[in-house]
């Protein structure tokens, strides 16, 4: 029970963002002519925010399976990176492991990638519930949006900043907790550089490749440092 409470508290920053962005997704899907079953199916089985927004276009355009697969790889390639950095952490997750891997979104990743503040026996349940709470918010939001079908009466403009704030808070926390800032600065520098060179629509994959390249080149030095 204590673990579930802790997991719930940790998931609170994601709640508002996922519910509101989920509602946004549900409304768009509704307006594209798809019912609540499809909203629920997408949020339960795909569970990747930006991909589901892109997916509405694929559905209405009647995209081929090949186009769908390629688009999904382009939009979601970053998930390879989340998984790579969780391999050691999730090694002893037992029965929770498949769901932990399945539910590794941007936000869940940022909540769990540096959370070591738990004992060996509770950490798996804790990670499971953080992941599960987050997906519940997303499913609830998308189903609600699809049922409502129109914009909620009060203005939630700007609430999407809670996601940005979540990443900024994680960045700050990791910065404080580590003596070595080279990986953080590498990530920041490479991404900014690629954003300038490739533009905001196409910088993600080049950024990830450049980050991997630089981190690989400085490996010898970094491992000596730690």
């Amino acid at each position, binding site marked *: 029970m204590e673990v579930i409470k802790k997991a719930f508290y940790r998931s609170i920053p994601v709640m508002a963002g996922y519910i509101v962005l989920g509602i946004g997704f549900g409304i768009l899907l509704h307006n594209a002519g798809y019912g609540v079953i499809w909203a629920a199916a997408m949020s339960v089985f795909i569970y990747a925010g930006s991909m589901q927004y892109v997916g509405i276009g694929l559905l209405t355009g009647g995209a081929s399976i090949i186009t769908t697969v390629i688009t999904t790889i382009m939009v979601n390639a970053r998930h390879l990176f989340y998984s790579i950095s969780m391999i050691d952490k999730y090694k002893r997750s037992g029965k929770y492991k498949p769901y932990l891997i399945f539910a590794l979104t941007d936000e869940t990743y940022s909540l769990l990638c540096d959370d070591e503040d738990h004992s060996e026996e509770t950490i798996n349940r804790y990670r499971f519930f953080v992941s599960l709470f987050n997906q519940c918010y997303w499913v609830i939001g998308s189903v609600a949006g699809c049922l409502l079908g129109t914009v909620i009466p009060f203005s939630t403009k700007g609430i999407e900043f809670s996601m940005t704030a979540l990443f900024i808070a994680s960045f700050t926390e*990791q910065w404080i907790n580590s003596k070595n800032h080279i*990986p953080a600065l590498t990530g920041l520098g490479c991404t900014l550089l690629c954003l300038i060179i490739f533009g905001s629509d196409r910088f993600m994959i080049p950024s990830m490749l450049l980050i991997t390249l630089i981190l690989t080149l400085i490996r010898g030095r970094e491992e000596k440092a730690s």
Partner: protein
Amino acid sequence: MTTAMIIAAMAGTTMALRFLPFLVFGKDTPKYISYLGKVLPQAIIALLVVYCLKDVSIMSHPFGIPELIAGVSVVIMQAWKRNAVISILLGTVIYMFIIRIM
């Protein structure tokens, strides 16, 4: 039917991306992959911060000022109280307030 197939393709591909590194490197993790696992989180969080702010224009109104003020508030609050819930709540409220008055 097509709808279900497109959704299945998206779900399957996304799952494949998430599971692939575990299937390939999960049993005997090469030292290189363990190294990446240690250094990547910090780099990826930096990437995600930039990703969220990618469409902010500093050349046109409101010049990225709401993002700057709210973002700095999150950093200060997080460094001071070390409580993500409070930092994120404060930053979001400040942001929502500034975009309404600018």
